[in-house]
């Protein structure tokens, strides 16, 4: 159940080598504030590992997403991983993997599923108790 820290360390160094050339590179911006940010981050790296695009394409896409934010969209607060997500969707669309409309449709489906769809009962007592012995 415990990870090999060396293996994890090596894996992390490989990812860091990828992201160190990206814009918006300071450590505070890179910190994950929400679980979705880490999922989006991981997906971009996984899709790249899968050969869906060159890393340089993602890099350019991210630069462009950030530039668009800088040039307009007044009032939108800075969110590094929103740009990241925009960049990921763009680079996937450019490579014909999926379209914006597809993602929109699926997103509506996700939002339409009640969050308690399959697990709605609150259990207010412990589900197991192992009493003190002796």
């Amino acid at each position: 159940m415990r990870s090999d820290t060396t293996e994890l360390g090596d894996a992390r160094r490989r990812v860091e080598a990828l992201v160190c050339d990206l814009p918006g590179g300071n450590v505070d911006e890179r910190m994950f504030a929400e679980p979705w940010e880490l999922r989006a981050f991981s997906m971009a790296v996984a899709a790249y590992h899968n050969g869906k695009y060159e890393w340089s394409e993602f890099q350019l896409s991210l630069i462009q997403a950030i530039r668009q934010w800088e040039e307009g969209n007044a009032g939108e607060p800075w969110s590094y991983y929103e740009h990241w997500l925009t960049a990921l969707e763009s680079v996937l669309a450019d490579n014909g993997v999926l379209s914006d409309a597809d993602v929109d449709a699926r997103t509506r489906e996700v939002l339409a599923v009640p969050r308690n769809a399959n697990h709605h009962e609150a259990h207010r007592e412990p589900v197991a108790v192992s009493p003190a012995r002796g």
Partner: protein
Amino acid sequence: MAPTDTPLRTQAEIAARVKALESMLIEKGIMTTEAIDRLAEIYENEVGPQLGAQVVARAWTDPEFKARLLADASAACAEMGIGGLQGEEMVVVENTDAVHNAIVCTLCSCYPWPVLGLPPNWYKAPAYRSRIVREPRKVLAEDFGFPVPDDVEVRIWDSSSELRYWVLPQRPAGTEHLGAFELAALVTRDSMIGVGPVGTP
């Protein structure tokens, strides 16, 4: 193009979009859940658990806050600017000399992620979800190397989408001189799940 033209999206909408994207890429065989989990695992300790650790450290140093935390964890966490997106109710269960608590989600992987970040893979695995309920002492001792003394009762709490539990571990001995910042550094993710100890100074 992605919808940069839409006005402010809520965090819940963005989270749904990420989920949608992930499910589509998996269906298309572009990546596997395992590959994403594996990458996420590299960073998972950087999301979340430090927020829970701050809450625990404050509870250890501020008895009135602790009382509020145990009475209404969602409200107490909100005081510190920590909260869920969908208003799930959170309940904190306190470890004492007589009772040790641990959490599980028996049906899926409900987890108090606003305070603990992403669940570790083993938390989502069927083995943990079933065995921690059937033989909690054995799982804690054998799988986690964290035996609970015989004279301490073990309680296992089942989280759901409505109600998410997490554990307030006991403040370790010999930390009377430490401030909240140093105390928070001792609080581990596993100690808030109830499957591991807090650190020692």
